[in-house]
């Protein structure tokens, strides 16, 4: 991203519910044309942050500036720039797909010809063209989400806020959904998306890993993986439990996770530890076919960073 001026700036954002800080001095900035992920488990503060960005919930502290508009001071003005798709998007279940789109288009005063052109393009992209006259209440979860996105996009906003749009959506629909988002990015739309699927985080340009209302880290997926404390060594073995028992207590092994075809060991230094792991497995007579460094997933990074966070320093 070469743009100098971020389109969204969040600084020291705070939201308390009674004594609990759901969002705890959160700061980040998003550049124009970026897909920015707020990623973390349930209760990390993702949805609360999104509601404040959308101007539907007032923060207890901090500032939000979207496209030059102070969202806290002037939420109505900021709504001209954004489209917000909450987790439960307000689809009318007793209206058809087409009728829902028409309703949202009228709300945003979109002309009939523009509406028709956009609806055709978006529905084709999401593979929903043949369901245009189906009642929204009879769509699958994935299709409902895609219809929600179509309705949210019918007024071509510059900024799109999507709160867990792919939760409970099957992998094929999830790919369709992302294909549409990438198309929007090409058109210069800025997107903030929340997700609890850590594997989905890899699809964002940049992301903030949220935990307990704070951003642990904020970077590109590639750079976040570089921050993985240590490395993952994959041991392919039909005797996974015995393999784990043989290596779990070795120096430098922080964690050992059983997977279907063996063990994933988190070690401090792969080059140093792989020979030691290998000889420990041989000493214990554990058969294994492969032992090699494996690229960490965002989930691996997240779990390792959290453990580091909890370890007193």
């Amino acid at each position, binding site marked *: 991203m070469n743009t100098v001026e971020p389109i969204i700036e969040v600084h020291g954002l705070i939201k308390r519910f009674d004594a609990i800080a759901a969002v705890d001095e959160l700061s980040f900035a998003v550049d124009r044309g970026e*897909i920015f992920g707020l990623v973390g*488990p*349930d*209760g990390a503060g993702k949805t609360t942050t999104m509601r404040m960005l959308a101007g539907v919930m007032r923060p207890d502290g901090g500032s939000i500036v979207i496209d030059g508009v102070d969202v806290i001071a002037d939420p109505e003005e900021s709504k001209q720039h954004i489209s917000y798709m909450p987790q439960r998007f307000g689809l009318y279940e007793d209206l058809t797909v087409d009728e829902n789109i028409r309703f949202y288009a009228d709300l945003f005063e979109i002309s009939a010809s523009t509406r028709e052109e956009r609806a055709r393009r978006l529905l084709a992209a999401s593979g929903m063209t043949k369901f245009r006259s189906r009642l929204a209440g009879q769509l*699958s*979860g*994935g299709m409902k989400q895609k219809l929600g996105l179509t309705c949210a996009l019918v007024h071509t906003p510059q900024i799109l806020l999507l709160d867990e749009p792919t939760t*409970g*959506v*099957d*992998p*094929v*629909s999830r*790919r369709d959904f*992302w*294909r549409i988002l*990438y198309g929007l990015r*090409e058109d210069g739309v800025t997107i903030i998306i929340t997700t*609890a*699927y*850590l*594997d989905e985080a*890899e*699809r*964002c*340009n940049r992301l903030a890993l949220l935990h307990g209302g704070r951003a642990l880290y904020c970077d*590109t*997926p*590639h750079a976040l993986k570089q921050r993985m404390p240590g490395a993952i060594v994959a041991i*392919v073995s*039909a*005797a*996974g*439990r015995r393999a784990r028992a043989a290596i779990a207590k070795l120096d430098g092994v922080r964690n050992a*996770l*059983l*997977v*279907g*075809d063996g063990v994933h060991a988190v070690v401090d230094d792969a080059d140093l530890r792989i020979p030691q792991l290998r000889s420990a497995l041989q000493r214990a007579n554990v058969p294994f076919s492969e032992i090699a460094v*494996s*690229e960490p*997933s965002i*989930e691996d990074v*997240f*779990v390792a960073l*959290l453990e580091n966070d909890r370890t007193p320093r």
Partner: protein
Amino acid sequence: MNASSAAEPQIAVDDLVKRFGQFVAVDHVSFSVGRGEIMGFLGPNGAGKSTIIRILCGLLRPSAGRALVAGIDVAADPEAVRERIGYMSQKFSLYRDLSVEENLKFFGGIYRVPRDQLPERIRFATQMAGLARREKDLVSTLAGGWQQRLALGCAVLHRPPILFLDEPTSGVEPTARRQFWDLIHTLAADGVSVLVSTHYMDEAEYCHRAALINQGRVIAIGSPEELRHTALGGELLLVEGENLGSMLAALREAPGVLDCSVFGNALHVLVGDAERSLRELPAFLAKRNLRPGRLERINPSLEDVFVQLIANDMAQRSRAA
């Protein structure tokens, strides 16, 4: 642990069919699960995963074909099957206004755990779930991960040799999810056979074998390693660089490229021969004034594999139709 080779499979499904009126929900499905094996069930919503699990639990009658669970024909004697299985659903089915111990006692009654064994089984379940000393806590006060482990404890109170888990990890945070899978591996090591459905594709990694279900059929089955290496029909490259849009369009036309899609800051390119494409693509792109920043071979994720397989299956069906 290569349990699939064990002589007696704990679950044996042969040519199973389930119709609801005109709709074929399960379409000639066959597979087996060995003792101590963890079998994953993956697939889009409505693929038939839950229908198969319900048939195997003796809750639905098959329209044709046969399913043996613990050696018992589920259609002939569903009651006997239910005594030998544990079942845990997505919603955990716990009583939120009862305590941990009260829930366990309740499920102990349902599963007919003999009264004199119940205290020992409850001790086992609370320890397994990491809930020792929290027996009196109300379920509603427990975090999602604890509730999930308690639900698993309830499902294994009667020591079933076979366990069905229907999307058990929905909405649980990553650390708790890993602990949960660790428990599943512990149970499997004790000989329990586990059939688990999930829509988290990355969770297939935790299974000994996984079956991919689409529109009522098993379209692939194997260990994570086998699925990754045989099922994709090609090798995967990662391409980074400026001007991803033009790069995408160019690569779709490039020789040896089977498919190309945007992935975050990069493109994923499916090719027939990775080494050859790594050699040839830079020149191909340079001719079009495109310069990739990073171009390398990557390991496909299981999601890559599954999405590709489902697309192949759909294409095949529409040709057949």
